[in-house]
């Protein structure tokens, strides 16, 4: 299978989810007072699902722009870690290509692309195709939701909203190879869950993601 085809075949549950959640975003943004143009511009310019919901919610409640932008920064700081982890695989690509890949970097693209690289592939086609299709799905969904959103049913009833989380769980299950991987994954999941339950939603993933790799050092030290 070519890398581009593999990206479509493996990615389609994520694509469907992106359209559905994109519709929900379009609808939410319109209800928060944004115009259709502003709503679509948000999905094109920011292109980061969760933080877009938080952004329009804060706009609706009249929060000052600097506070909104700071919140978005904290929410998306995890991308910095993802880009650092992706870096070895894209380091030889030309700068323009890397700038484009950075624009397409989302949780989903990161998770799928790392899965591809860890299976021993070195091409960037998989990443590019997956990220590009995801971008189209997210923006199409946003536009649909912003334009026709009122008649759409709640996706939560059908469990579709859980598909993205299920993708992350499955990638971890397939990706763990050593005892230290298990320790790192457990530490990350538990710390992120605890932080989110305690209300630190904005920074839960970045803190858990940054700390959990230290568990790998602990496991290896033990062995010596």
């Amino acid at each position, binding site marked *: 299978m070519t890398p581009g085809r593999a990206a479509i075949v493996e990615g389609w549950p994520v694509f469907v989810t992106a359209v559905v959640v994109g519709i929900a975003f379009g609808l939410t943004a319109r209800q928060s007072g944004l115009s259709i143009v502003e709503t679509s511009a948000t999905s094109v*310019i920011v*292109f980061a699902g969760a933080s877009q919901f938080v952004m329009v919610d804060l706009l609706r409640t009249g929060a000052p*722009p600097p506070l909104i932008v700071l919140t978005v920064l904290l929410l998306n700081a995890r991308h910095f870690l993802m880009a650092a982890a992706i870096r070895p695989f894209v380091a030889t690509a030309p700068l323009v290509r890397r700038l484009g890949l950075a624009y397409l970097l989302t*949780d989903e693209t990161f998770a799928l692309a790392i899965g591809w690289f860890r299976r021993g592939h070195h091409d960037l086609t998989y990443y590019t195709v997956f990220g590009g299709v995801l971008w189209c799905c997210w923006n199409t969904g946003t536009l649909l939701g912003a334009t026709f959103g009122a008649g759409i049913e709640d996706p939560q009833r059908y469990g579709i909203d859980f598909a993205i989380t299920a*993708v992350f769980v499955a990638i971890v299950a397939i990706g763990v190879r050593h005892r230290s991987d298990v320790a790192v994954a457990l530490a990350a999941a538990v710390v992120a869950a605890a932080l989110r339950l305690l209300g630190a939603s904005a920074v839960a993933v970045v803190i858990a993601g940054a700390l959990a790799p230290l568990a790998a050092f602990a496991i290896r030290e033990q062995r010596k």
Partner: protein
Amino acid sequence: MTVWVTILASGIVTYVTRVLPLAITTSRTAPPQLRRYLDALPIAIIAALAGAGIAVPDAQPTGGAEVGAAVVALAVAAWRRNLLFAVIAAVAVVAVLRAASL
């Protein structure tokens, strides 16, 4: 006006978080400790995303349905080594469990 400033500034800070590690090149190789840290980073981030999504799926703490579905996703993925089967099974289980708790 406020809306456009917010959208543009949010887009810029988001892009900066994504681009910094990819745009800066260095010919120096990372020290071994840092390499080990970076090796473990992908699993950590993806597991953190999973843990956060299970604990608080939609602004509300989980009622248990998501935990059950995550266990199913984990089992199916470990057994079949197939992303798609695992996701379909998890979505079906979470839909049934949520409906059952109503």
